[in-house]
């Protein structure tokens, strides 16, 4: 019942999403234009995505790597503990 309610609410929100490629949305601002216009000259990477995730937002990617490291550490703790008496 709760799941159905949540699903209906999510569907209602999804109807209100802006269409793909729409320019009149808050996320299309000077940041996106800056990346598209200058990332080639500022980072030297022809892949804009790579320029963003490893240069402009390198610290964020470092956090992502830390998440992976924590996940493996947790997994090793749980499974190593099970195989020991």
């Amino acid at each position: 019942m709760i799941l159905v309610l949540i699903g209906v609410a999510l569907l209602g929100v999804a109807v209100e999403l802006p269409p793909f490629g729409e320019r009149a949305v808050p996320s299309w601002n000077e940041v996106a234009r800056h990346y598209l216009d200058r990332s080639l000259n500022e980072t030297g990477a022809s892949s804009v995505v790579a320029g963003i995730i490893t240069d402009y937002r390198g610290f964020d990617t470092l956090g992502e790597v830390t998440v992976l490291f924590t996940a493996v550490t947790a997994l090793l703790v749980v499974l190593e503990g099970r195989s020991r008496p």
Partner: protein
Amino acid sequence: MDDLILRTVARVLVPLVQLCGLAIIAYGHVSPGGGFAGGTVLAAGFVLYALAFGQEALDRRLPERTARTAESLGAAWFAVLGLVGLAAGRNYLANVLPPGSPGRLLSGGIIALVTAGVGLKVAATMVTLFRRLMGGEGGERP
């Protein structure tokens, strides 16, 4: 599992898959791809190898200790690389190397180095996850 078709196909496919993964990592700053995607493909090669030849064969080729070292090395490499920016008097993780000419393999400053670290890390993570979730007892204890 001991299957002739699987082993024969895997013998041909594993090097190609891993080469593809390495290429995706190496060209992460030139074309779509990067450390996360390439590392996953590289690990898929190891997973295919383990599925075809057994976990013991994987343990011989890639001991768990090596995977764990690669794991820590990839993360530490990323963090230490950030210090280079500080040493050059700029922000943490600043791109201090020259950008080079875009589109070439040697371009993008430290992006390629960061991508290599991420690829190593992700590949090691995937292999360790696979090995542990398969219940591999063959892994050596630390």
